[in-house]
């Protein structure tokens, strides 16, 4: 007990000594005073700036889709025009605008009727219009420079194939060059079961902001799957 008592006494003296040091330290004052207004400025800077930034970000996020759409609207026609200019094939994309689709179908029907071929009835054409072709794009590609002559369909001046095949079951497609945008018309290289490739017009459904290939591509690009909205009726089985 005596030992405990001594310890307590020593503890008390130690605590008193610490308290004495604390009281002395309480008198300490910094040599340099704090600048007046510094803390208020800090609050203003560090609490308002993030909000302002957030506001800016909110605006940026709100306008990003509009900006992207405008950019694509400006860039896409230029790039597609570039493709047309550099393409050794006829002006496919421009011919495959929505208007061209209609005329192409109409022309094909007229031609089919005149030639007496076994074309699909007009009702089939209408029924198939806009149908999404269940196609998978092949990774097989053909460089334009090495494209086999037999694989290219004879073209008319308007870019419409003169002898459309109506019985071919297309199995795979490859998309030439560069496609971008929401819905892009393009000639696609279709591989028939018999191995004879053909170039057929199609409307692709490329998501907004996505693109396949580069504008500078001068050969067919390798693709696994390109969303094909529909292949022109004359070629669609």
């Amino acid at each position: 007990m005596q030992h405990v008592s001594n310890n307590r006494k020593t503890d008390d003296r130690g605590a008193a000594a610490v308290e004495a040091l604390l009281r002395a330290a309480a008198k300490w004052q910094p040599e340099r005073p704090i600048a007046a207004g510094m803390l208020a400025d800090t609050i203003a800077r560090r609490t308002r700036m993030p909000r302002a930034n957030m506001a800016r970000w909110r605006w940026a996020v709100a306008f990003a889709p509009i900006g992207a759409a405008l950019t694509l609207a400006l860039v896409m026609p230029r790039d597609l025009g570039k493709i047309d200019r550099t393409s050794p094939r006829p002006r496919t994309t421009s011919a495959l605008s929505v208007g061209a689709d209609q005329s192409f179908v109409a022309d094909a029907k007229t031609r089919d009727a005149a030639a007496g071929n076994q074309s699909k009835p007009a009702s089939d054409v209408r029924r198939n219009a806009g149908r999404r072709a269940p196609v998978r794009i092949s990774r097989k590609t053909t460089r334009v420079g090495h494209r086999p002559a037999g694989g290219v369909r004879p073209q008319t001046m308007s870019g419409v194939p003169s002898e459309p095949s109506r019985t071919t079951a297309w199995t795979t497609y490859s998309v030439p060059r560069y496609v971008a945008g929401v819905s892009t018309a393009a000639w696609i290289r279709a591989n028939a079961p018999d191995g004879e490739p053909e170039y057929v017009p199609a409307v692709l459904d490329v998501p907004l902001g996505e693109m396949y290939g580069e504008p500078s591509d001068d050969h067919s690009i390798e693709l696994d799957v390109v969303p094909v909205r529909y292949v022109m009726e004359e070629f669609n089985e």
Partner: protein
Amino acid sequence: MDFPDPQEVPDAELLAAALQGDTDRFGQLCERHRARIWRVAASVADGAEADDIAQEAVVRAWQSLRRYRAEAPFAAWLTRIAANVAHDHRKSAWRRRVLPLSAMSERHDAGVDAEAVALGRQEQRAVRQAVADLPERERSPIWLHYFEGFSVAEIARLAGAPEATVRSRVRAGLRRLGKSLADNEVIGDTAQRQVLAEAERCSM
């Protein structure tokens, strides 16, 4: 229309506005208590680092303002946050790296004539820094009670604990502080240090 002098507006009113998101009012409130914040910051750092600590303290206070319980004095709450920031600074890797250089320059700059005064100030500062190094539950009551003059009852309200608990924490803090200061080279060969050393020996 006459606007009231900011100094005349009571803390509670500024605080109420700050709680509504008024950063200007909160800035005024911090300016009102800047001397306390500065004493904490300057105890553990010099120059721009002390500025950083003071600024960090008010930013942290703003961020945690919603958690402030109005029953405790705002000044005590703010000082506790500043002490926490000071503690973090003391424990930071950056400070551990740069301290030797700053400590050397401080000792070198002390003139021969001012040596006694400087040593006294160094000793006081060393004690404050030792308090800043204590664990939070012991640091806040000791700092607020001994350095800033808050009563145990006010500290208890701030901590949300009974006064007896606060006193117990203070006693535990004093013991820990005694051990720390007994080994502190800055503390001179004073009577207090001898007592601390004796207390340290007996507790072993």
